[in-house]
């Protein structure tokens, strides 16, 4: 009895059915086993629904219902396979896996409040029935997706996305939280407010966040303009012209770049002090621009790929090097210019160490990185945590938007760095 149906992969049908049946059986196995207190899945539903509060008993009910439906759908599929039913099977599988997964996190509160168990409940007190249901539900989902020819990679992607977005969600929620303080015993805020954002910008606040934000913007804009000009000029010279000490210059930059940057910071600070620039924003701009030429490498790699015949043709037409640079190379290098602007702009936003060295305790000229770090100091974290979250969101939003907008160029620059 070998059937083939386009759009279905019946090889996995039997496996999916077995996993579904295992899930169905698990409902009648011990759900909790805490010493002598043993409750099987079906009974747990009855008991918790009658006494428990919150959504978790309903999740448990949905999970068990889905397990039974999985078996039914599997049997029908075995008898008469068809595509719409396979899709429905997948949906039930998702519901089932999601509910058992949620129960992993919700069972404690549910069981503690419902009075099923006399003792306090721990995850390790789950009975064999629960673990079987959890494992079988994911295996079943995997196989059922295979049957329906849907890439099971979605399962992994969804779980990974949750892990990746969890801290971001947490900080956004914290920034909107009405209850102040660092320590809270729950994930979702009890009350929402925009007050944390308002406080950052109120005049009497000890946290001049607006000022910090503008400081950083100023530094970032100046740095990215100067650095980009310097990097372009250096890369063009090293790519397009040949002069005596060119190789020596490149090798010197390579070697200097191998020293850890922190090492020289104290000396740079002393030099800035000698120049009268300590504790100013100009110092940040000057030092960033002064070191910019060291990062010529990726840009030069890009220039190297622009055919030299273009230069030669231009020279025959009477152009000089300056004109070749401004009229030929620069217009052809949009991706790498955007990459350079972007990295130096973003670098200014996230640099912490050097500004902290230069600014010391002069809070007026802090950049956002310094300011946010100042707020998370253990002496202040309790008072400022929600404002810190709001500040973090305000810094992250424009940068993430910029990054996603220009992502294409970033990838191009990155792969340029790989080839190098």
């Amino acid at each position, binding site marked *: 009895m070998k059937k083939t149906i386009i759009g279905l992969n019946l090889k996995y049908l039997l496996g999916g059915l077995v996993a579904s049946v295992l899930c169905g059986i698990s409902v009648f196995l011990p759900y909790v086993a805490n010493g002598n207190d043993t409750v099987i899945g079906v009974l747990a539903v009855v008991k918790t629904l009658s006494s428990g509060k919150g959504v978790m008993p309903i999740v448990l009910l949905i999970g068990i219902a889905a397990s039974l439906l999985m078996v039914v759908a599997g049997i029908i599929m075995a008898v008469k396979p068809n595509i719409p039913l396979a899709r429905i099977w997948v949906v039930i599988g998702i519901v089932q896996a999601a509910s058992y997964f949620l129960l992993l*996190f919700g*069972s*404690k509160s549910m069981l503690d409040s419902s009075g099923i168990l006399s003792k306090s409940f721990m*995850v390790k007190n789950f009975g064999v029935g629960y673990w079987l249901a959890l494992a079988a539900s994911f295996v079943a989902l995997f196989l059922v997706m295979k049957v329906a020819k849907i*890439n099971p*990679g979605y399962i992994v*992607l969804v779980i990974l996305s949750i892990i*990746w*977005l969890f*801290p971001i969600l947490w900080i956004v929620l914290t920034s909107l939280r009405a209850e102040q303080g*660092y*320590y*809270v*015993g*729950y994930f979702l805020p009890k009350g929402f407010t925009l007050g944390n954002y308002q406080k950052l910008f109120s005049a009497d606040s000890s946290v001049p966040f607006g000022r910090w934000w503008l400081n950083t913007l100023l530094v970032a804009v100046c740095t990215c303009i100067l650095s980009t000009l*310097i990097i372009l*000029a250096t890369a063009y010279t090293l790519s397009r012209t040949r*002069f005596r000490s060119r190789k020596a*210059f*490149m090798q010197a930059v*390579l*070697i*200097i770049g*191998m020293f*850890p*940057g*922190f*090492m*020289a910071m*104290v*000396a*740079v600070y002393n*030099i800035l002090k*000698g120049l009268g620039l300590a504790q100013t924003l100009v110092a940040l701009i000057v030092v960033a621009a*002064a*070191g*910019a*030429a060291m990062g010529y490498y990726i840009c030069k790699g890009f220039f*190297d790929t622009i*055919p*030299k015949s273009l230069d030669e043709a231009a020279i025959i037409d009477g152009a*000089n*090097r*300056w004109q070749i640079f401004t009229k030929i190379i620069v217009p052809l290098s949009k991706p790498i210019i955007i990459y350079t602007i972007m990295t130096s702009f*973003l670098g200014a*936003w996230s640099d*912490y*160490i050097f500004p902290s060295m230069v600014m010391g305790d002069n809070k007026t000229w802090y950049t956002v990185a310094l300011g*946010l*770090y100042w707020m998370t100091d253990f002496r202040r*974290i309790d008072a400022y945590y929600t404002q810190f979250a709001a500040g973090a969101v305000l810094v*992250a939003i424009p*940068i993430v938007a910029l990054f*996603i907008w220009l992502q294409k160029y970033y*990838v191009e620059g*990155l792969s340029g*760095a*790989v*080839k*190098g």
Partner: protein
Amino acid sequence: MSSKEQKKDYLFQKPGPVSAWKYGDIFSKLSCFIMGLGNIVRGQAVKGVLFLLIEIAYIVYMIRTGASSIAKLTTLGTQQQGLVYNEEIGIYEMSQGDNSMLILLYGVVAIVVTVLFIALWYASVAAGEEARILKGRGKKVPTFAEDVKSLANENIHKLFLAIPILGILVFTVTPLIYMILMAFTNYDANHQPPGNLFTWVGLENFKNLMSSTDKLSSTFWPVLGWTLIWGVVATFSCYFCGIFLAMLINSKGIALKKMWRTIFVITMAIPGFISLLVVSTMVGKNGIINVLLQNWGFTTEALPFLSNPMWARCTVIIVNMWIGIPVTMLMVTGILMNIPAELYESAKIDGANAFVTFRKITFPYMLFITTPYLITNFISNINNFGPIYFLTGGGPLTLEYYKGAGKTDLLVTWLYKLTKNSNDFNLAATIGLVIFVISATFSLITYRRSNALKNEEGFQ
């Protein structure tokens, strides 16, 4: 004129001090002492005067401070701050004393200025010789206006590199030399200027760090070991998981590829210090992760994510993966698409499964392309300041280590702490040199492998 004759002809020598002594006239020879003379006598007055002014400025600088700055370098100061008996008035007076740190800094500045001056001196003699040779050939010697104009053409490298080189000299090279020299002094917490002097100690610091049996070397070796372990684990964990993630998103049948990628890219777009600070507040003792784990019934008490050495090391590695995997994913995506599709088709016909295709096709291809990236990534991980500093601050601290160093400290974070907290600049500089040696070794491997600098004309 045949080429043989050309070679003999003094006019075709490479212009410079050598040609000036060998073939030049009296003015050429004198131009080795009076900069710009060679230009002035050959009609390039402005250029020559400029060179002369540079020489005068240098001499004035050397007489006023430069020479004594260099001379003082040998001792780094002899007069300690303290009470000195003043015979005229007959009382003890507070004397300022020498400041070893400033002496070292000014000495380094004087040396850099001198090196710069020597380069300019060479250039001036060469310029004079060039003018002489042009004149000797009967050609026109360029005027100052023409020289300026040439900056936009054949001499554009002088125009374009002047500011970058100046910037690197002032803000990178000078500080670096200053700090490298510091590794050979005893500028530690007990020798702080202006109250105390410090002086040269040779290789003492290196000896203390590496071979002595006291706390210092028993801190250095474990920190170095953890730095290398961290470098390897952080690099490869992000690399393999990033490849896996990129392949997953690229695989057939995944819809909305762009959306999935964006989800992961968000974490890498957020400035590193923000996401790290957020995560570090999340995994603290009262942080949300511990709260949730207890609410969910996974543990009964807070887990020591940052306070137990082993846990803290695992935490920084995992959090680093959270940040680093999207970077690799983004980078690898393009490369994966470039792998010839025929390879996969023929493998499929031969009956290879997904794992075999990965092991035999995808992975070797990836490794071939990304080896230089892997090595540079390893180096940057060794110097990866952020995850350690913002998450654990190097902690948990331990009494086994030299003051300030903690169990998750890398060499760079230890270096930073030594400069910022305990003012042991000599040790910081020594560690910096050790990091340089490690980076240089691995860079050399990349450099030899990638051929990028050797064959730069290759694909033009």
